[in-house]
């Protein structure tokens, strides 16, 4: 079984490095300054470039390095992944777009049409990261009032409708959340390969829904025993699940260099922010509450957040995003990723800031050292790419 390595893309821009992760200097989500890129300042004036130009550069780097594609995240404070995928489709060759979206925000027939058109623009390079919602104020920012466990029922219906119209219909559906009559994708849009589905969610309701709909059950990185238990719970609801993890990676030739990046970035972290993080309740997001539970109860410095070897729980204090990441030498990070493969992981969504330069660290430093599953370990084949 082949293992897919995806590389995330920074949909609200990127910092210049993890050392300066408090400032997004790439993309136009932060005010332009002298150190800005896309837009840069030429003669004091913005040069006309924007985040999309930086995303093109990042996606081209990722595909040129052999990554399977990338996750295009979606939050209140990001550009929209459907629109970005449409633009990137014409600028890239093999990069696959794992579009993050919440079913409640979009009519399922429209989602099917957008997907089919994107498939046609990109020769079938669309995948889904279906998020059912962290809840709390962000959910209401989108205008979504449906309660947590009901949202999973809605996601199930959404995918039932989407699959129902995918091959052309006519399809009728009358559910709690959606109703269609005589629906179906038209002509050339109908019957394309259905996108690979990555399903997120850590609660019992999410795990139950994933069993019905997901090709891949996607989790954030957590301590390995916790992930093993979570995967076992998914296995209880699904005949043959595939597992995916979303992992931030900070890898350098030596462990000292890698932790040196953390040390320098940590200088910008305020102790009160650490205390607030440790007491954060995470709204009604089960995943965030889990992550908080894995953090240390007290701290004296950033190394206290290395909760097991190379598993660092302090990233959310340094930049927006998940708490956990792997930090270490190329060899150490490769060993931990092999450990995740041993847990059953078949797809990785790796990430690091800035996504452009870090893609090279991971592809050139870490991936060649991966060994795969014990029974299937073989020397790397020589794949000749056109010169």
């Amino acid at each position: 079984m082949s293992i897919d390595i995806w590389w995330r893309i920074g949909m609200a821009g990127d910092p210049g490095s993890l050392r300066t992760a408090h400032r997004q200097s790439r993309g136009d989500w932060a005010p332009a300054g002298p150190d800005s890129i896309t837009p840069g300042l030429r003669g004091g004036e913005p040069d006309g470039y924007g985040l999309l130009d930086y995303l093109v550069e990042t996606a081209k780097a990722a595909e040129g390095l052999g990554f399977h594609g990338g996750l295009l995240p979606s939050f209140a404070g990001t550009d929209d992944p459907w629109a970005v995928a449409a633009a990137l489709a014409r600028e890239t060759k093999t990069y696959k777009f794992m579009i993050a979206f919440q079913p409640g925000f979009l009519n399922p027939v429209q989602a099917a049409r957008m997907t089919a058109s994107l498939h046609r623009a990109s020769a079938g390079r669309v995948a889904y990261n279906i998020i059912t919602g962290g809840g709390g104020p962000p959910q209401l920012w989108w205008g979504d009032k449906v309660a947590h466990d009901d949202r999973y029922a809605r996601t199930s219906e959404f995918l039932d409708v989407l699959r129902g119209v995918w091959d052309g219909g006519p399809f009728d559906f009358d559910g709690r959340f959606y109703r269609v009559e005589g629906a179906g994708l038209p002509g050339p849009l109908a019957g394309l390969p259905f996108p690979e589905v990555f399903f997120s969610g850590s609660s019992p309701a999410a795990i139950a829904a994933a069993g019905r709909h997901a090709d891949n059950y996607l989790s954030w990185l957590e301590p390995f025993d916790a992930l093993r238990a979570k995967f076992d719970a998914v296995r209880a609801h699904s005949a043959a699940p595939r597992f995916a993890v979303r992992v931030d990676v900070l890898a350098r030739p030596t462990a000292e260099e890698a932790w040196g990046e953390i040390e320098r970035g940590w200088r910008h972290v305020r102790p009160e922010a650490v205390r607030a993080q440790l007491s954060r309740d995470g709204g009604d997001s089960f995943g965030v509450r889990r992550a908080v539970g894995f953090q240390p109860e007290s701290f004296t410095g950033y190394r206290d957040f290395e909760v097991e070897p190379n598993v660092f729980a302090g990233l959310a204090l340094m930049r927006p995003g998940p708490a956990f990441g792997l930090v270490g030498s190329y060899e150490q990070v490769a060993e931990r990723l092999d450990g995740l493969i041993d847990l059953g992981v078949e797809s990785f969504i790796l990430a690091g800031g800035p996504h452009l330069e870090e893609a090279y660290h991971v592809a050139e430093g870490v991936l060649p050292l991966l060994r795969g599953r014990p029974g299937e370990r073989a020397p790397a084949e020589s794949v000749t790419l056109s010169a």
Partner: protein
Amino acid sequence: MSGPRIIWTIPTRGDGKTARGWAPAPALPGFLTDGRVGGPAFTPFDYLHQISRAAELGGLAGVYTPYDPHGEESLVVTGSLGRDSRYLEVVAGFPAGIATPVYAAKLSATLQRAFGGRLSWRLEVDLDERVQRAQGDFVTGPDRYARAAEFLTVAKAVWHGRDVDFTGRFYEVVRGGFEGPLAGLPFPTVYLSGTSDEAFALSAEHADVHVFDLAPDLDAHLARLDPRVRPALQASVHTREDEVELRGPAGLRGTYQQVADRILAYADRGVDTFFLSAEPRLEEALRIAQHVRPLLAGRA
């Protein structure tokens, strides 16, 4: 002025330990899906474009593709990179021996049309003579400066004029000159280099900019330069946030602030353009853009 101008050097024979942009890209281990396999062809130019786009998006002034007989062809690389940018000055390095001056000008007029006037020539005069002979070029010694002078004279004449007749030691043209859309374009900015008497004489006649290597006797060389010609400096650069991180090659080496201060000190001596390089070219271009360029902005 907007500050010192940084022109970033494009690798012609690979970059970094995997020779990106030259050698075939390494395959992933066999049990990983290689996203590239089965898709449209990737080419080594994809990576060269990554570098030049980093320079463009990072607000650097230009990219320079050196002449390298054992590497990628510089005018072709220039043609590709220039079209993929809006602001960059694109500098092609080549010697006079590669073509007649009329043909070099003709090819360059098309590049100039493609780029909207951002092409520059960096004419290499004192190449290793064994390298020259392997390229079919047997002009040696000071004659190379005489030929370069004729080359530039003829190229400029046919670029700007009609019915150009020229008879020299190396070239002869009858009723030359460009017409139609090829006429009236800006002639490429001419960069020359060298510290011999012949080199300074050639620059006085033909150069817009004269490129010096980083050397302790720079002031003595600057004094010999024709006042019409702008000086530029060429150096490898090695810069990090902290001094403790600084290992590696000599050249323009120091913290971000130290390198910026040195560049500004050269700018105070009249040097406005810096041909810089560091490996890996992509990451280091972004490092310079993000951390050094802001310290130069609005100065000089």
